[in-house]
């Protein structure tokens, strides 16, 4: 299939280009928009491989929710670029060393483990439903890891809320319960203003 090959290289090129732009863009808003583009093309690659569930979930979760919040925060920051650039050169050797270490480790893993030698999957049946297949696998074979991961995430959410929750005294927050409990007779009293009968 020549069309899918062309599309694969197109999406990959845009993905790599936008991923590079994420770290080179000067404007943080541009950087996060490039990250959106990178996610989008990664999703397109998933769908090209027939993994439409992963692709759509990537768009739904990362593009639809996570990056919206990222942009939300980044747009409100007043970032001083010159201050950000201070110390760029002094951190460069350390950063490069970590990057090279990471690449080396990945290379070792791919060379020595069977991970690098997985045979190409066979042709996908025409109406394979990988959402169902993934669901069945997650809720039967991998039930415990899946549930434990979910609980860990829940704990992280609760911890983040507990760490940042401050109950300040003296704020004028409305008490919704009190508002809902209000009845008309508590707020309005109708007074008969008609004078004596004429």
């Amino acid at each position: 299939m020549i069309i899918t090959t062309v599309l694969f290289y197109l999406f990959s090129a845009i993905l790599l280009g936008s991923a590079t732009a994420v770290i080179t863009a000067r404007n943080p808003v541009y950087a996060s928009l490039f990250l959106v583009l990178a996610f989008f093309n990664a999703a397109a690659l998933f769908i090209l491989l027939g993994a439409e569930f992963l692709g759509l979930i990537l768009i739904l979760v990362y593009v639809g929710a996570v990056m919206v919040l990222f942009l939300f925060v980044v747009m409100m920051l007043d970032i001083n670029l010159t201050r950000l650039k201070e110390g760029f050169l002094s951190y460069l050797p350390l950063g490069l060393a970590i990057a090279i270490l990471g690449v080396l480790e990945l290379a070792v893993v791919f060379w020595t483990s069977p991970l690098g030698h997985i045979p190409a999957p066979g042709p996908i049946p025409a109406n394979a439903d990988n959402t169902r297949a993934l669901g069945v696998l997650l809720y039967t074979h991998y039930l415990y890891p899946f549930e434990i991961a979910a609980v860990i995430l829940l704990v992280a959410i609760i911890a983040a809320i507990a760490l940042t929750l401050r109950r300040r005294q003296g704020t004028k927050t409305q008490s919704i319960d009190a508002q809902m409990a209000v009845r008309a007779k508590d707020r309005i009293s109708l007074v008969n203003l008609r004078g004596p009968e004429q």
Partner: protein
Amino acid sequence: MMHDFYQTGWWAVIWSIIKILIVVVPLLLGVAYLTLAERKVIGYMQVRLGPNRVGFRGSLQPIADALKLMFKEVIIPSSANRFLFLAAPVLAFVPALLVWAAVPFGPDVAISNMNAGLLYVLAIAGLGVYGIIVAGWASNSKYAFLGAMRAAAQLVAYEIAMGFALVGVLMLAQTLNLSKIVEAQAGGGFWSWYWLPLFPFFLVYFISGVAETNRAPFDVAEGESEIVAGFHVEYSGMAFALFFLAEYANMIFVSLLTTVLFLGGWYAPINTPLLTWIPGLVWLLLKTAFLLYVFLWIRATFPRYRYDQIMRLGWKVFIPVTIAWIVVVGIALETPMRAILR
């Protein structure tokens, strides 16, 4: 060989373009006349006539509006980010059209009758907010920026409730394919549609749809009484029109999807020969039109929600309600009620 040619050759591309045009052209006409319907309906509700100058009783008003908007200058504020300022209306408009790829108009009649259709529409419908956020930021205006921030927070809040509501549909239909979801509601007329067993989801989905399309009473992103016009305050001409096209296309889409998910899609409300003789597309469009009328009705009836009340409704009311009802549906599916629900 002939078969291969039709499947993969240029014919497939041309046929796709024809299908897209068959959907998009009536959609844009529908958008144009929805603006007229809105002005007329709200006019009558407020004991006015609404537009009645252009054409017979104002019937050509949308054409006049479109011509006016096309010939107006697109003004770019001097301190705006030029590229993103012009990209934002496109970012809002494109997802509004993209979602229609998965919308079924009849049994297996869709531009793409994909297996993961429900997931696709949920994913793509969430992208429209980028247009609003980018517009608010690129305009370099306080009002626009406030509108964008409000839109972002609101969208994230209501998308979760919307997603949970769709989980309920998924549990009963056992498929993500929109066409098959409608077929799962076939049978006993409107009693077998999903609005009944999933009534809380039906309400939550539709109200979240109103919130996601930034319509009154949840239109704080525009909020003309506080922040002038919100995210599109700096836009004029066709750039402004694209935001409106997107908003109205999204309204039609939410109404149609509510019909597909909860109101039995193209099935007649009562299984009698007279009603089932009417084509399914007519039923689908009639139900959609009714929900669109509800959109306008809501706008004419309710005052705008206060911003913190919107957030409370989304996070503290809708999400717990949907989670509770998912548990209820889950338990019901394990009892003999399963036979009735499925």
